């Protein structure tokens, strides 16, 4: 076996070993395990709910409206007689479409803004950061209410809106780590050999800030679900007749006193999802911090 083969094998091994060590550590954390199982369950459900639901979630049955949980309808029926159990299972799709896409958008935008402002600093940085400050002075939901009530709503609008709202938040995080990296000598060394700014930002600095970006992504995903569901609840997101959880809770609210199961089950479902995502995010954060 040649020296080169040997070293490339050891290189692979070392990379695998590191990945395995990180993952092994994650697996040893109970909160990660619980969170991951729940998240995976909801993702599988979001994709394959057609195969999982006992009844068509949109099938109306006015005669069986507002029934409590029975053997036929495990979670009862809603005001149109639709099966709450089926609707709860089908309700994860919309939020699991919106949240990851919005997160991706926000992370991408925030990474670009954070890299550029952090790397260049100076007047542009000061200006952008003031804008970010001003932007952050508005509670997220208020911006969403303002914009969506004016522009009208669609799934795409909600994704873009959450993505745009996340951009300044993410950019702040990225900027703060870029500020630290920028002053390290490897960047000075790159400049001394005549590298361009773009190369330094993308090839030298970016790989060194991936850890905080990953952590931020998982945290943002939790917030994205939070926000998307809240917008649905305020009737500013997904529209009828979607089985979306936030929307269902919003509409079923008026039956709260006679048929609390209509809102209770989607609420619990949503709660498990957001808590699970945050459990995973928190575990990743802890492992990455070491």
């Amino acid at each position, binding site marked *: 076996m040649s*020296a*080169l083969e*040997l*070293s*490339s094998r*050891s*290189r692979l091994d*070392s990379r695998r070993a590191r990945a395995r*060590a990180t993952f092994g*550590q994650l697996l040893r954390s109970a909160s990660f395990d619980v969170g991951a199982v729940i998240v995976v369950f909801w993702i599988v459900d979001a994709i394959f709910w057609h195969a999982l639901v006992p009844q068509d979630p949109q099938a109306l049955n006015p005669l069986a409206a507002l029934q409590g949980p029975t053997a036929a309808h495990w979670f009862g029926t809603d005001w149109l007689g639709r099966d709450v159990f089926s609707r709860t299972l089908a309700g994860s799709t919309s939020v699991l479409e919106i949240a990851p896409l919005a997160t991706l958008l926000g992370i991408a935008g925030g990474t670009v803004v954070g890299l550029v402002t952090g790397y260049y600093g100076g007047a542009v940085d000061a200006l952008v950061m003031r804008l970010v400050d001003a932007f952050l002075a508005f509670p997220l939901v208020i911006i969403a209410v303002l914009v969506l009530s004016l522009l009208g709503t669609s799934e795409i609008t909600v994704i873009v809106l959450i993505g745009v709202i996340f951009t300044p938040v993410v950019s702040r995080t990225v900027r703060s780590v870029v500020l630290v990296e920028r002053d*390290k*000598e*490897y960047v*000075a*060394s*790159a*400049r*001394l*050999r*005549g*590298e361009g700014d773009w190369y330094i930002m993308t090839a*030298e600095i970016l*790989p*060194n800030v991936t850890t905080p970006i990953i952590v931020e992504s998982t945290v943002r995903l939790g917030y994205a679900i939070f926000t998307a569901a809240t917008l649905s609840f305020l009737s500013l997101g997904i529209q009828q007749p979607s089985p979306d959880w936030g929307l269902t809770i919003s509409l079923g609210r008026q039956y709260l006193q006679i048929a609390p199961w209509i809102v209770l089950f989607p609420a619990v479902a949503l709660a498990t999802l957001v808590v699970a995502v945050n459990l995973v995010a928190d575990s990743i954060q802890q492992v990455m911090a070491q």
Partner: protein
Amino acid sequence: MSELRSADDVLSVSNLSISYRRRARAMRVVSDVSFSIRRGEAYGLVGESGCGKSTIAMAVMAYLADNALIDGGSIRLLGDEVIGARAADLREWRASRVAMVYQDPGSSLNPTMRVGRQLAEVYRYHDHVSWDAANASALTMFERVQFADPRTILERYPHELSGGQQQRVMIAMALAANPALLILDEPTTGLDATVEAEILDLVEELLRDIGTAALFISHNLAIVSRLCDRVGVLYAGRLVEEGPASEVLHTPHHPYSIGLLNSIPHWGATKDHLRLLPIPGDPPALGQIPSGCAFASRCAIAEDACLAAPPPLAPCSGVHSLSACLRRDDAADLAAVVAKNEAADGPAPVATPVRIGREAVVEVTDVIKRFSAHGTTLTAVSDLSLTLHRGEILGLVGESGSGKTTLARTIAGLYRADGGVVRVGDATTRSRRERASFLQMVFQNPDTALNAKFRVARLLGRSVKRLNPGLSADERQAKVLDVARSVKLQESHLDLLPGALSGGLKQRVAIGRAFTGDPTVVVLDEPASALDVSVQATILNLLVDLQREHDLAYLFISHDLSVVRYLSDRIAVMYLGELVEIGPAESVMRPPHHPYTEVLLSANAAAIAAGRARIRLRGPSPSLANPPSGCRFHTRCPRSLGELCATVAPPMQVADAGHQYRCHIEPSALATLQSLRPDAAAARDAETTTDTDATTTRSTRGHS
């Protein structure tokens, strides 16, 4: 070592073993360590990073990290067992039986509490006196640690004090409850040489007056032996040598101790006469202690028996020292053995003529560099001019805040000068790329100087590509291998990430990277300071070899005068952003020289160990934002003339050929002033530097 224990022991540590658990693995950091400290004795514990010395100190304080596990042994403090002691007993013993001074005084003081109150607390809670009485005692204590104005210091918050003042507060606090044992854990690391010297003087004086026993922990054998009666040398968690300080310093009997001493240029040595003798290889990684003698893999006289089991500490013949080496009585001759091996490895030192008078490769004229932050502007470099010639090593010396790194970065082109001209290269150096291949830089900290996400091959390859635009892929590959070989990296290293390399290897990669474009000038900003002593020498030797081979010019920055003196053809001294002296190395080291240089020299630990007299610096260090009028050094100058120095900026005086200093005192007068003090060392310096035989120099040094 039970025969050493006596009723008179303040501290007795026996068979102490400690591990850290990390990711369910136990890593042994201290193995079977035994030593004791008698009443009033100062004991030094010396070793490099990761050798377990701080862990031992924390074990004595019963303040180990949560993941530390004491595997066995005992720690007795005035006869009482510390391991497993009750919390109430520990609380009582801390401060009154044992107290500690830490490496970083800045973070060891509570930032939201006045330092006077932090000291008074000790009296309040140990002596159970009123706050008024406690405050009064605090004032007395601050007087004892020689604060010029103790009453105002009482009212200060830590951030309002300098590093040296903070460490005085820590010392005052540690001594407040009259402990039987004072532990000093690298108390001067991170402080400037002049401040370090003051703190060490203070500690020396206090220990003598109070009669407190001390456990002094340091990586610097010279400092430890100055303060301590006995010294223990730790390597990879084991005590490898123990004995009277002067014996361990001058006639060490363990190959590691010998290697440590040989790694640092002793006072007066220069590269032209003496090649440093580094310890080959690296210390074992944390928790990976081999079964036999941990040093065997780096040892020139190791034999098969060394690998069987860790050798116990045993007496050496003819001296009082104990050494954990099977060949301890042969070890004294080790220097000769190593020198022979080393000779095959690198070129022998040659005396080269002073390289002045060749063409200039860097010309700095009236350069000014300012920084503004939070509304104030600091002039980090003011009106500075100097020239670097082809093939010479110019050493740049100064303490923190002197502007030496700023100057280096301005020359390298990382900062744009706010005034004056930096000319790099010759007529052919016009484009950015030409400049980049002409001048490169090596930074202090290889951890941050190498992109942690790039493998070594890419780190070198990218630089080869940028600095040698014409090369084909194959030629680039060949060049990478070539560079790797020239900095003594193995081919297998190329596939590793920096994180998998030791500090010394990382710095070799960084040096290799700077040499990929065959530069003419290399700026070296403290290239060996972040490394362990035993690894430093390898790097310095490598730099000397490369410089000779390629006829390079170096701008070499260091706070360590011994290293600068060893390496440099010429030396430049900076103080508060100004060049105060420049000239041929040996000329700068001898009077007449700038009073600041004089102070720096007298604060150098190696110089002190070599018997130089001490001159103290007056007053606090002035701020760059508000530099003193007249001569910037006048507020602290031991030779100040008063009014003139305070008002008129001094001229450059010519001491002798190529040697200038900025002062109002003329060379002849200054020479007289500076030779007035007893300075036996100066004479001896001259003697040893003329001695060209490396091994003789080293073995005679101790006895002279």
